[in-house]
């Protein structure tokens, strides 16, 4: 096991948004400038406890997402660090231009918190499933985009975001999902973590006399958000089959940890990206834009393939749209075949 290897067995399940709620409280206790604004969803986006503890620093704007971020922009201009919370489909969905102009173009430290992202608004149906928010956020100059893999990482990401001057989008999943990281797992905005390496991957470095540049035999899997769990299970399976495999947790999608991504491509020579988002414009696209310029390797994209979602249980939807272990496993097999 390498130092940052994550737990996938016997994990307890906690909602990623709970981690955000903890992180927000923590950040608010440390820094008086932290304020929270909410669009009539304080319970859903886990701002209720903040409201109870810091009522004078909580602003309820009603069901008005355009107002949510523009008021936050004004507060940031006065020195506050506002967290603006809603569902991802509405923020950055409905209020994208306001985020572009009054937050990013204006260059103020507003933190956009989009909950119920990906397929996690499952039973609410396709109207509420935000599968485009990463694309919307990452196309904006100056915007930092974070998609935590579990509740503990969401807490760390929230606390870290509260300490930067950057416009930031934090993407949250609604459902209880496996907690893979621990309080000790390293987290830094802009840093990707390789969290699993098969045995031969672990020796694939320059201190190993067998190491040869371009001697690719494995696959690198890059995942963002809760689906990292599925990616890890697939990696262990491939490892058991004697394949060389490494898994990266890419929780900061922007700024992209270019060095780490290129290094992983260099080490493995084939890449699979996994995200609960449209393939178009998502995390995989960010990785492909980088690798196409600097280190092209065959890639497979696991994500939603230019479709809207529908009503269903979260797990049913993950399977239907190919975000299950079976599909990630076949993508890994395909990409390794394509290299040969």
């Amino acid at each position: 096991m390498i130092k940052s290897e994550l737990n996938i067995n016997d994990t307890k399940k906690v909602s990623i948004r709970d981690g955000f709620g903890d992180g927000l409280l923590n950040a608010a206790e440390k820094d008086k400038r932290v304020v929270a604004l909410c669009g009539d969803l304080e319970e859903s986006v886990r701002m209720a406890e903040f409201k109870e503890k810091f009522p004078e620093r909580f602003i309820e704007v009603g069901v008005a997402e355009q107002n949510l971020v523009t008021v936050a922009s004004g507060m940031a201009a006065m020195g506050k660090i506002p967290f603006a919370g809603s569902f991802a489909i509405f923020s950055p969905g409905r209020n994208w231009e306001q985020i572009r102009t009054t937050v990013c173009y204006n260059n103020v430290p507003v933190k956009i918190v989009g909950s119920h992202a990906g397929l996690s608004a499952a039973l609410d149906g396709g109207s509420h499933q935000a599968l485009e928010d990463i694309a919307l956020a990452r196309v904006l100059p100056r915007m930092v985009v974070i998609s935590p893999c579990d509740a503990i990482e969401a807490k760390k990401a929230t606390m870290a975001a509260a300490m930067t001057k950057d416009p930031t989008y934090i993407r949250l999943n609604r459902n209880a999902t496996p907690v893979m990281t621990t309080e000790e797992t390293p987290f830094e905005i802009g840093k990707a973590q390789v969290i699993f390496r098969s045995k031969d991957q672990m020796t694939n470095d320059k201190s190993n006399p067998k190491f040869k540049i371009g001697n690719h035999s494995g696959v690198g899997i890059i995942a963002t958000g809760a689906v990292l769990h599925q990616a890890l299970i697939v990696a262990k399976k491939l490892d058991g089959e004697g394949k060389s495999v490494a898994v990266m947790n890419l929780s900061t999608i922007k700024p992209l940890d270019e060095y780490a991504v290129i290094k992983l491509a260099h080490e493995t020579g084939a890449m699979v990206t996994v995200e609960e988002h449209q393939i178009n414009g998502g995390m995989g696209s960010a990785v492909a834009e980088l690798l196409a310029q600097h280190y092209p390797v065959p890639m497979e994209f696991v994500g939603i393939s230019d479709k809207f979602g529908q009503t269903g249980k979260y797990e049913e939807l993950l399977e239907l749209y190919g975000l299950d272990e079976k599909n990630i496993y076949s993508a890994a097999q395909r990409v390794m075949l394509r290299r040969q």
Partner: protein
Amino acid sequence: MLLTEEKVKFLEKKAAEIRRSIIDMLIEAKSGHTAGSLGMADIFTYLYFHALKHDPKNHNWPYRDRLVLSNGHICPALYAAMAHAGYFPVEELNELRKLGSPLQGHPHREWLKGLETSSGPLGSGLSQAVGMALSDRMDNGKSSGRQFFCLLSDGELDEGNSWEGAMLAGKEKLQNLTVIVDRNNIQISGFTEDVMPLNPLVDKWRAWNWHVQEVDGHNFADIDRAVNEARAVFDKPSVIIAYTISSKGIPEFERKYEWHGKAPTTKEEIETALSAFNKIS
């Protein structure tokens, strides 16, 4: 500050200079918004030379009042008032809309010192001013002494975001917020009441629990009385609906919506514009 007759005369002279600067900038740039810039020249003059607590030499002075221009397209008036007030040399006004210029086509706070926000896309300035006023009250209570001014166009009241901000300001009883609506009755493609009727405009603001006043936007005494009344209102945000004449100062262009979004560019238009101002000055 008392608005004496002498001060009114000074403001009238200053407004004429600012109008002249605006038309010179627009002619030089060959692009920009004539109607609203000239129509709001008196109000910008009043704010920068009488009402605002500000320091042109120390634009980050924390105790300053804040002025948020929501309809950024009338920035020639803002830039001209700022230059004449001493934020930057008047000669630099001819850099409007040129590559690398601090005087961007729509205002950007990182390009020009002294701007509170970057604006242009309509309908989001009021909410930003609401956020500022809320923050100030959060930190300093109801008597910080800072006033938050927000200038809106009437056309941008078509935007839903404007009314979302108005609703929140009413809910929060933001007594430190004063909005001035440029009621010139035109927007880019026609008269406001043809494009999207706003009347009864006074009733709309009242319905969101605002203190509403109506003024002649070219009468300094009238504007001053309303701004002072707004400062005195303790439990509501205030809106001043300022009736203005678009393209004020060039009779041939006045009240014509065709001048909303363009600058004088033909020889004839430039002569018309300049001769109107030469008559005054």
